[in-house]
């Protein structure tokens, strides 16, 4: 839709330096889109179990290759990031943590939690 008065509707991204909370916000969207595609991989693995031994082994060969592992590693980080930041969004929805100091603090907690959970998962796997 055209903006009749030509006033800017959002910050000029090449000039405006995104604050930490802004970077987390756009990363939340990006990981959401990535997860929508990546979750197909998980269901592929589940369908491969249901399909029998042959399809299970071929799925494991694909996902267990170095490239498969790299993709899965990225998927788990995206999942845990989106999960942690999603909880932060749910807290906002019930009215908690809107002030700037708290928002900055929870930003750091979210990034930390996403890496901790990812590393924990790959220690188990």
């Amino acid at each position: 839709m055209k903006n009749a008065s030509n006033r800017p509707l959002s910050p000029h991204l090449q000039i405006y330096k995104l604050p930490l909370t802004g970077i987390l916000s756009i990363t939340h969207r990006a990981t959401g889109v990535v997860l929508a595609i990546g979750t197909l991989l998980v269901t592929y693995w589940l369908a491969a179990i249901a399909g029998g031994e042959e399809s299970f082994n071929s799925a494991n060969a694909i996902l267990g290759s170095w490239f498969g592992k790299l993709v899965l590693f990225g998927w788990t980080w995206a999942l845990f990031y989106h999960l942690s930041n999603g909880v932060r969004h749910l807290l906002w929805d019930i009215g908690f943590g809107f002030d700037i100091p708290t928002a900055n603090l929870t930003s750091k907690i979210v990034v930390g939690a996403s890496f901790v959970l990812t590393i924990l998962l790959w220690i188990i796997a």
Partner: protein
Amino acid sequence: MDYCLIPCLRNLHDMSILTPFKRASGLGSTSDGVKHWWMQRMTAVALVPLSLWVAFAIASHAGEDYTTVAAWFAQPFTTTMLILFVFTAFLHASQGLTVVIEDYVHHDGVKVTALVGVKLVLVLLDQQRLEHFTYRICRLIEGANNQCPTIKSNTIPMTWLS
């Protein structure tokens, strides 16, 4: 679906001095925004335990052989959790992608095509997979001679992705 059919048509006749607020005011809501917003939160709440469980459960079974994994997979609790996860995750994904498209795609034709595409692909995929899972799990539990409901084509999901 909340694309801007009426505001967009009005825009064609509206050159100029009206502000965006003035153009939008008085047109009313598209009716399903609150439900969409609320359902996205509800699926998000459900996905907190579900996705944590799925990620760590799958990780703890990584590298095991087929017999072990299939036995785990056929347990009622596992099956229930996986079906809930797949269904909720794709619903949440479809709602999220809808919002992203609405925000960033400004060409009406492309926008509507993408929105309909997301709905059809994700919802159909979900449906196919649920049918496929249910059938295969029934076979695993009941064995080859069984009363499992047949599905139209149980090879479709596999050929799509393998």
